[in-house]
């Protein structure tokens, strides 16, 4: 009984930790986005929000934004489908947020004789689960575009759906090669495989085994996030997007979904191609460098190092995505579709075939 209760408590704590981690990162990603864009553009970025006059380089900005969003008028257009209109952002948010469940943050933690997986749920089909959830998120977009009962939002929604579905194909196909290399759909297994060494010194990370797959996945994932340069569904600056009719917290949810997608993409990139929580040459008892020599570490330190490595990698990809968003101009719609169908899909097929050939050899 107590065992079950403890088990539930552990899972609950894991859920809370993962969500807090996700949401906090989301919040600060908004700040990061502002700051990074400012640095790129020789500006200062948000630095005004303060608490009792303390305004540590604008770190309170996300809170200010949140408060603002909460207190803004939640306007529902009189001509809209009210229920669906209200539901849409939550659908979007939910399906993105839930993907975090399958992401491994670290190796198993041993406290006494209890082992705790640093992963909410260790699915055996984790990868499929993530792909499924990501593709379900499109409902939020489509529903919001349609429920607003506005031509422009509908167009935005349709574009979003078309784009996401198109890239879903490339995304999925790009991962086939990976699954062929690491013969598992279980994310924790994939990460573990990546702990092995290639030629005795190179970590067996996805990037090294599947460079083409990585490229396709990166592009496809960027497109999935619907951010610049693939922001055709929203196109804040000129095209009117699917959430035009939203305001206040509901609009905030869309915004958060956006950033959460960035994080999810980053975690996926980390997990699938950059070894997840793996630190090169770090085994569960310490470092074993390929040139000989060992650095033995206590278990807690190893776990902390792994979690930190995971975070650093995720963080890097977040940074990279923001950099991309502030560097490149938007594609034209036909170019987006061309890129997806005419380049990425064939390339991923080539990747699968190539991987197969290499593996059989």
């Amino acid at each position, binding site marked *: 009984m107590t065992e079950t209760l403890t088990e539930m408590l552990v899972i609950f704590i894991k859920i809370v930790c993962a969500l807090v981690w996700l949401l906090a990162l989301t919040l600060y990603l908004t700040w990061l986005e502002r700051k*990074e864009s*400012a*640095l*790129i*553009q*020789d*500006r*200062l970025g948000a630095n005004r929000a303060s608490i009792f006059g303390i305004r540590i*380089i604008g770190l309170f900005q996300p809170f200010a934004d949140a408060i603002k969003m909460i207190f803004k008028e939640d306007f529902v257009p009189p001509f809209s489908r009210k229920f669906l209109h209200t539901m849409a952002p939550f659908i979007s948010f939910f399906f993105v947020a839930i993907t975090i469940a399958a992401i491994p943050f670290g190796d198993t933690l041993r406290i006494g004789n209890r082992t705790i997986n640093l992963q909410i749920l260790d699915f055996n089909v984790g990868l499929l689960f993530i792909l499924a959830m990501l593709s379900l998120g499109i409902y939020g977009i489509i529903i919001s575009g349609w429920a607003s009962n506005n031509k422009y939002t509908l167009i935005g929604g349709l574009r979003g759906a078309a784009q996401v579905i198109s890239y879903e194909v490339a995304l999925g196909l790009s991962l086939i090669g990976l699954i062929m290399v690491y013969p598992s759909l279980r994310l924790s297994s994939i990460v573990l495989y990546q702990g092995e060494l290639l030629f005795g010194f190179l970590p067996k990370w996805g990037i090294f085994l599947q460079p083409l797959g990585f490229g396709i996945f990166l592009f496809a994932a960027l497109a999935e996030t619907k951010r610049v340069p693939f922001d055709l569904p929203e196109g804040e600056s000129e095209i009117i997007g699917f959430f035009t009719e939203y305001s206040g917290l509901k609009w905030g949810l869309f915004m958060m979904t956006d950033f959460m997608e960035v994080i999810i993409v980053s975690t996926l990139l980390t997990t699938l191609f950059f070894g997840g929580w793996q630190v090169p040459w770090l085994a569960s008892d310490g470092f074993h460098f390929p040139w000989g020599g060992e650095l033995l570490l206590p278990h807690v330190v190893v776990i902390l190092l792994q979690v930190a490595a995971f975070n650093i990698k995720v963080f890097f990809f977040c940074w990279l995505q923001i*950099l*991309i968003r*502030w*560097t*490149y101009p938007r594609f034209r719609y036909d170019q987006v579709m061309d890129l997806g169908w005419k380049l990425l899909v064939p390339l991923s097929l080539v990747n699968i075939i190539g991987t197969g050939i290499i593996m059989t050899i």
Partner: protein
Amino acid sequence: MIKALGYFIEIIRGGLITTRHFVVNLFYHILKVLGIKTKRKGSVTIQYPEQKKEIASRHRSLHRLMTRPDGKPRCVACMLCVTVCPSECIYVEAAEDPDPEIQKYPAKFIIDLGRCCFCGFCVEACPEDAIRMDTGNVEFAQYSQQDLIYDLDKLIG
């Protein structure tokens, strides 16, 4: 294919440029946070309410009416500013001054700043140099339109 590769290289280069900006600016920001003064700054931003950009000498800011040595307005209510104003935001009503050397003075001089487009024509047109836009005051935003209607007292004071 080579062309596409060229594009690809350019795309990468673009990313590198933004990255360079990011890194360099970050470096200077960090230096600043550490209190090390450098010639170059990490940003071009002016922190407006605390930091103010120096207003150019020709900048057209809030109007003011000049006065004679005895404090009377220098304006003689010739209404040339009214005539020249493209947004019709000036209203002048003249009255008789007992001093025969002055004769005419503005009993009312109203500028509706809500309509003013700050073209400065009134200053150009004024034959008495009675109106100027050199106060340097650019912060006169108000919560109501009524508060933007400036009368003689406000313009002199």
